[in-house]
């Protein structure tokens, strides 16, 4: 395996009109490595991965694939270069079947000329097989509508899809956010599996434990800039938690909540101000 990063950002800025969302982002991920992208809400994580996925073009700076500067013409272009992204929202179509969801945009067809038909049987068979490989054994019918699946099952479907289509870079935007313990563990196992197969993985999460379980390399984003960049074992769980809270000390936060509860008959502070 060469040492050239599969994907790299160099001094990337991204702004939407007058709003600067990303500043001077430089990152690289090698094959077989998991980069965990951490950061508070609104820090710019989703924007960063959309730039990697070809959804947004960087305002300034370069994206490099295998050391070569590239300009994606769109999400499809990025996909064709082996960058598969599971976005934070959407990604599946609730009123469509498992098989059709799995092959969206890459439909297997049979027949010839203008009479190419969608090969439903093959699509369903492969989709069910691939999802089952991810440990979701409850999906046995490729005709089932995705709207009837749980959040974790949908997430697994989206990841299975990305892996199946031969991604070299797998980008996952908060894949464990809506999941229970067991399903989150599944997703983490998939991340490890992808890593073992030599994929470069970029994994976004708010849960430090999840990040520490799979991450080799961590980057913390605060207000669109990289505030910390370190490798596995270089920082403790507490330090990472503090960084993720935007540099605030988590222990202080906890203490202030406890202090509040003591003075308010054990009630936590109200969320809404009224």
């Amino acid at each position, binding site marked *: 395996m060469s040492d050239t990063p599969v994907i790299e950002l160099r001094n990337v800025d991204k702004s939407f009109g007058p709003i600067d969302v990303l500043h001077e982002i430089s990152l690289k991920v090698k094959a077989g490595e998991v980069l965990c992208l951490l950061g508070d809400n609104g820090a710019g994580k989703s924007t960063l991965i959309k730039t990697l996925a070809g959804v947004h073009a960087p305002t300034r700076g370069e994206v490099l694939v295998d050391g070569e500067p590239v300009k994606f013409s769109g999400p499809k272009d990025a996909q064709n270069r082996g960058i598969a*992204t599971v976005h934070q929202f959407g990604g599946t179509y609730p009123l469509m079947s498992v098989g*059709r969801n799995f092959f969206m945009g890459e439909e297997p067809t049979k027949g010839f000329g203008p009479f190419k038909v969608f090969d439903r049987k093959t699509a369903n068979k492969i989709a069910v097989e691939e999802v089952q490989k991810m440990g979701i054994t409850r999906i046995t019918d490729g005709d089932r509508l995705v709207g009837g699946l749980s959040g974790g099952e949908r997430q697994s479907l989206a990841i299975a899809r990305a892996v199946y289509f031969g991604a070299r870079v797998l980008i996952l935007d908060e894949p464990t956010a809506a999941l229970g313990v067991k399903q989150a563990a599944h997703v983490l196992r998939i991340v490890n599996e992808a890593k073992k197969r030599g994929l470069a993985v970029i994994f976004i999460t708010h849960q430090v434990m999840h990040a520490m379980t799979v991450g080799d390399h961590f980057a913390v984003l605060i207000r669109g800039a990289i505030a910390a960049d370190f490798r596995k074992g270089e920082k403790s769980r507490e330090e990472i938690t503090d960084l993720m809270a935007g540099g605030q000390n988590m222990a202080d936060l906890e203490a202030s909540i406890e202090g509040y509860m003591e003075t308010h008959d054990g009630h936590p502070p109200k969320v809404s101000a009224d």
Partner: protein
Amino acid sequence: MDIMTILRRPAAASVISLIGVLLFYIVFGGVDLGKLSGAASWVNYAARIGIVALPVALLMISGEIDISIGAMIPAGAMTTAIIAGHYELPMIFAILGALTIGVVVGLFNGILAVRTSVPTLIITLGTLVAMQGIVLAGSKLLTGGASVPLTAPGWAKTIFGDFIWGGSHQVVIIWWLILAVVFWFIMHQSKYGNWIFAMGGDKVSARNAGIPVDRITILLFVGTATAASFVGMCHAILFNSAQVSGGMNDIFNIIVSVVVGGVLLTGGFGSIVGVFIGTLTFAIVIKGIDFTSIDRNWANLIIGVMLLLAVGMNETFRKKAMTAATKKKKG
């Protein structure tokens, strides 16, 4: 196939609507089914709105709507009549002219839809009114009137505007059937149907999956406007004349047919079989009432009730389709 599997199909509500309407006409209207099925009026009408309902269904499944079709039916008819009738140019120019106007207005709608964030209901409301103005003012300006006669050559009659089967059935019925098969193939057999469903389900995700959302949206708008001007053209050739008015009711009739046919107004769900049956059902209510003892003024009430019931059924069946996990036997 158990009963639930059948109910979960997008066409279920339209089939039930059709059976319901027929039963109602038999029980309360004393309709003679033999006479009704032999009659041409409702089939002709079904074909007229059905040809437009097919592309409108695709557009609605993709999550957009086009109401400018109301102006495009008379626009196609007037274009045909002005070119072939008033200016006495060869029919082929009239046909090309009518279709071109459809393509141009469709492109206009489609490009506005993908370039702006204005809802397509508003965009096409704009083109609806604008086209009404253009057609009325244009025909007054060019011909001095709002009604233009024409004579169509034999071949044009045979292809677009004749009676078939030795009776009063119109040749547009055949067009409708052929187009229904073509649209069924696109929607349910080819990968493009998959893309259109995905666009209605989640446009952003569809775009991220690399589907050419903008190009397809524009094509779908070209489809609706061109189908409408095609219908107008066929009408003008059949009746040897075209009027500026007419076609306005068609907006609602076409959309009702599509919705009764099981297409979700918010997009992402529906079927061509459903839309076909929905169109038939609608035509039977409107034109079939003449074969019953029911006063024809009640037809709109029936349509209203049917629409509400069909939408209610669609909602229920769709929820069932989402939640119910199919218990499959091995294999």
